[in-house]
């Protein structure tokens, strides 16, 4: 079971809204989670480190050290809800450098109580990138043969693992500057990865990743991008 997901909450809200119209029944629980989550988010000053409006704006290189954490304005498009709730309660390192630096290490992160995590998670999952199309990438495990092909896209066609750690048959290997994909399957939504690979600068104009996705180099085909996204979001899933 990978994603309950994404638009689960948005659908839930619409569902609740329709219920209200049809039967006069409100669903305060779903809505309250979002509102209270936003209050907790504000009270804990999470926005000091996380950009909450999009698309992300580019900053000159010299100013990027002012950015203290990854943007979250598209959190509901990017994350799997189950992973998010667990992580907010007990954060574990995702990146392998101190944020925004080239220094190996992890960032200590504020942890929330179970109740707070549920509300803040609901709020974050309500923040979707409306321009991202959904149901593009198949959410299924890859067969051995297709997985082999996909891994080549990740390690040879472009050397993604030069910056991203991933679980290979030789164990977890790879560079340090990109987020680790050892738990890519639990963490990331395939549609978002597919969209991000086509339009990286929309989310990360201030990152260190090359922008892939047009004729500046031997580009991936659309099918290959979908496969890459499916591959990354199957990494670290049960059975591997």
């Amino acid at each position, binding site marked *: 079971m990978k994603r309950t997901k994404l638009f689960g909450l948005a659908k839930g809200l619409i569902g609740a809204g329709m219920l209200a119209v049809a039967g006069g029944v409100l669903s305060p629980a779903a809505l309250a989670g979002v509102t209270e989550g936003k209050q907790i988010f504000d009270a804990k000053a999470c926005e*000091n480190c996380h950009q909450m409006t999009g698309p992300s704006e*580019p900053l000159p290189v010299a*100013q990027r050290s002012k950015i203290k954490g990854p943007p979250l304005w598209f959190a509901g498009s990017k994350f799997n809800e189950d992973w998010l709730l667990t992580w907010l309660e007990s954060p574990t390192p995702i990146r392998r450098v101190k944020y925004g630096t080239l220094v190996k290490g992890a960032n200590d992160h504020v942890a929330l109580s179970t109740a707070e995590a549920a509300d803040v998670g609901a709020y974050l999952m309500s923040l979707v990138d409306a321009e991202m199309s959904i149901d593009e990438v198949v959410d299924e495990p890859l067969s051995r043969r297709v997985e082999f092909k996909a891994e080549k896209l990740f390690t040879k066609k472009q050397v993604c*693992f030069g910056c991203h750690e991933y679980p290979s048959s030789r164990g977890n*290997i790879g560079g340090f500057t990109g987020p680790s994909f050892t738990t890519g399957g639990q963490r990331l939504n395939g549609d978002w990865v597919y969209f991000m690979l086509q339009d990286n600068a929309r989310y990360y104009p201030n990152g*260190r990743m*090359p922008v892939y996705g047009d004729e500046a180099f031997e580009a991936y085909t659309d099918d290959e991008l979908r496969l890459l996204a499916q591959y990354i979001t199957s990494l670290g899933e049960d059975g591997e």
Partner: protein
Amino acid sequence: MKTKYNLAIATLSSLSFLAQTTPGFAATPKENFDWYCAQCHGVDGTGNGINSVDELPVGPMNLTAAKEMSKFTGPMIIKTLTHGGPVNTLDSLMPPWGNRLSTDEIEGLMNYVRALCKEDGCPK
């Protein structure tokens, strides 16, 4: 300059200013190198960046070594920087930067890389 002035003010306040700034401020070649290239090549260009781990297919090239750098003309370097290693039959671990950096920035980086190579036999 007006843009710069606004920016200076903006950076004094919180992250919310991000939404108001305008794109397209030029970075110096050194700023670009330290941000994008040093992660593999190291700030000094010798190839000791933090992504340089044993399991990679090749090591990030030592850009200070005459032995390596005498193989590449300026136009070849520009081509590699723009389209990635494979256009010059190098490994695809050297990424394409043409979508991230402007042609001016890439030319600046070429000159910067050239200047990192100081030993005898380095191309001038």
